[in-house]
C-alpha cells in the first residue's frame, strides 16, 4: 500500500450526546484534490479541527505519511507539514499582508525567536513571502494592512499564510466562503494550480465548483463518512442524492 500524505483511523468525537465524528477513516494521497461535502452540521469543520489538533478526538489516530501525530500540538503538526485555512477570516488585521506572510515564513525557518536582529536582515524570508504573495496575485496590495484589503484578497491571504508553512497537506475550510460566485471559480483555479506535492482537501458548498475542481469527493452526514468516490460516482449515488442533493441536482 502506498503511503497517504494524511490518514485518519477510527476518529471519534462527541460533545455530550451529540456525535460529531464517528469512525472517520480518511486517506489523502500525495497531490490529492479532494472535496469534503455534506449538509450543515455534518461535522466537516469539526473533522478539520480534529485533524489539525484544535480539537482532541475521543478515540482514533491521525498520521502524516507514516508518522503518528495524534498527540502533537497544533503548531507541531503545522511544522510537520499540515496546514489549514479558516472558514471565517482568521488573519492579523493590523499587520500588512507582507508582514503576516513573512511571519509565517520566519516561524518555519526558525527565525521567529530571534530578538536581536532586524527583520529586514532576513532577506531570504522576506523574498519567499513576497514570492508567495505574487503567486496568489497579492503582490500589489501586500504593503497594505490586512484589514484594508478587499474581502476576496483576504480569502487569498488565508491561503498565502497556509502556503508559507510549506505544507504537504492543506485543509481548506470553505476557501470561497462569502466570495461572489463569479470570483469563487477564480479562487479555485488558484487552488487547482497549487504544487502537485501538496495534498488538498477542501470543504465547499457550491456543487458546480466541487464537481469542477475535485478529483474525488467525500460525503459526510451526521458525523460519519457516507461515501467517497469520483465526482461521477458521487453524482450517481442514490444515497447521496437522497440525503444531500435532494435528488434533483446533477442528475
Amino acid at each position, binding site marked *: 500500500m502506498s503511503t497517504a500524505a494524511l490518514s485518519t483511523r477510527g476518529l471519534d468525537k462527541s460533545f455530550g450526546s451529540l456525535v460529531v465524528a464517528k469512525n472517520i477513516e480518511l486517506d489523502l494521497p500525495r497531490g490529492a484534490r479532494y472535496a469534503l461535502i455534506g449538509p450543515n452540521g455534518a461535522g466537516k469543520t469539526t473533522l478539520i479541527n480534529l485533524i*489539525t489538533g*484544535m480539537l482532541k478526538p475521543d478515540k482514533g489516530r491521525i498520521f502524516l505519511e507514516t508518522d503518528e501525530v495524534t498527540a502533537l*500540538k*497544533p*503548531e507541531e503538526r*503545522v*511544522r510537520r507539514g499540515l*496546514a*489549514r485555512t*479558516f472558514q471565517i477570516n*482568521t*488573519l*492579523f*488585521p*493590523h*499587520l500588512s499582508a*507582507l*508582514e*503576516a506572510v*513573512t*511571519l*509565517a515564513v*520566519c*516561524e*518555519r525557518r526558525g*527565525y*521567529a*525567536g*530571534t*530578538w*536581536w*536582529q*532586524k*527583520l*529586514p536582515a*532576513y*532577506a531570504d*524570508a*522576506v*523574498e519567499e*513571502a*513576497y514570492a508567495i504573495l505574487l503567486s496568489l496575485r497579492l503582490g500589489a496590495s*501586500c*504593503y497594505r494592512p490586512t484589514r484594508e484589503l478587499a474581502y476576496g484578497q483576504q480569502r487569498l491571504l488565508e491561503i498565502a*499564510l*497556509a502556503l*508559507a*508553512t510549506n505544507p504537504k497537506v492543506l485543509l481548506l475550510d470553505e476557501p470561497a466562503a462569502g466570495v461572489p460566485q463569479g470570483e469563487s471559480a477564480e479562487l479555485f483555479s488558484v487552488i487547482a494550480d497549487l504544487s502537485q506535492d501538496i495534498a488538498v482537501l477542501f470543504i465547499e458548498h457550491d456543487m458546480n465548483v466541487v464537481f469542477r475542481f475535485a478529483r474525488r469527493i467525500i460525503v459526510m452526514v451526521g458525523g460519519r463518512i457516507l461515501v467517497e468516490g469520483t465526482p461521477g460516482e458521487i453524482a450517481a449515488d442514490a444515497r447521496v442524492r437522497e440525503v444531500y442533493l435532494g435528488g434533483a441536482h446533477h442528475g
Partner: protein
Amino acid sequence: MTSFAASEPQRYLEAQIRWRPLEIVFWLATLLPFVLTPNYLLLASQIAITALFALSLDLILGYAGIVSLGHAAYFGFGSYTAGLIAKWGWGEPLTGLVIAAAAAGMLGYLTSFIIARFRHLALIMITLGLGLLLAEAANSASWLTGGADGLQGVRMWKLLGMFQFDLYGTTAYSYSLLALFLLFLVARRVIHSPFGLALRGIRENAVRMPAIGAPSPAHIRKVYTIAAVMAGVAGALLAQTTETVSLETLSFQRSADVLVILILGGAGRLYGGIVGAIIYMVARDQLSGVNPQYWYFWIGTLLVAVVIFLPNGILGGLARLMPSVRSRA
C-alpha cells in the same frame, strides 16, 4: 535590479523601522532638564525610571497583548535586590544593577510558565495575585526587607568611582536616563526583529498563531522574561538613586499606576510609556502641590477622557493628526 540592491519588500520593511527625525529630537530634548530645570533633576530621574518601567510593560501589553496587574513584582524585586546588595556592603552601582536585572529576569522566567498558559481575565487575576503574594511576602519578611519601615542603610558608592549620587540628582538623572536610553534601544530592536513580528502576531490573532506553526507560549515566556529584566533594572535604579527601598515598590498601586501611564501615553507605540510617564509625573508633581487630596480625581478624569476620546492613547491621538508620528505598530 542588481543583487546588491535591496528589493522592494525589503525597502518597505526597512522604512518601517527607520529612525524618524522626531525621535532624534525627542531624545535630544531629554537633555534639556540639565539646562532648563536643574532643580528638578531628581524628579526627572524618577520620570526616566517610571518611563523605563512603563516601556517594559509595553513590551508585554502593547506588543504581545498580555494584560498585567502585577508588573510591580519585578520592579520591586529588582529594587530590593539592588538595595540589599548595597546594604550588605557592595555599593558598586553597575554590578548591582546587573545582578538586580538578572534576579528580576529569573523571577520573570519562572512566573512566565504560568503566564503563558492563560489569557484575558484569568491572566489579569493571576498577575494580580502574584503581585499581591510577593508584596505580602516582603511585608512579612521584615527581618530582610525592613517591612513597612523600608530598607534602611543602603549606601551607594560613586558611579564609575567618580560621580557621587548628589542631592541635586545630576548623577541620578544621567544614570537613569542613560539606562532608559540603552534599554529603549534594546526594546526598539526587539520589536523590529522577527521575534517582535511574532509578538504582534500574538496580539493581533492568538488563534491563528498555532495554525502558522508558531509556538506562542514559548514567545510569551521569552518576552515576559525580557520585560521582567527591564522592570528589574527600573526598580534597581530607584533603589540606587534614592538609597532606600519601600514596600511601595511592590505594591498594587505601582502596578496600577504603570498601567494607567501606559494607557494614557498609548500602548504598543514604544514611546507611549515614556510620554505617559512624563505627563503623569509632571502633573502629579504640579497638582499635588495645589491640592494633593484631589490628585486621583484629576488622573481619573484624564484616564476616562483619554480612553473615550483617544482609545490609542495620547500618542495614538497625535499620530492621527500628524502622519509623521504615526507608529509602525
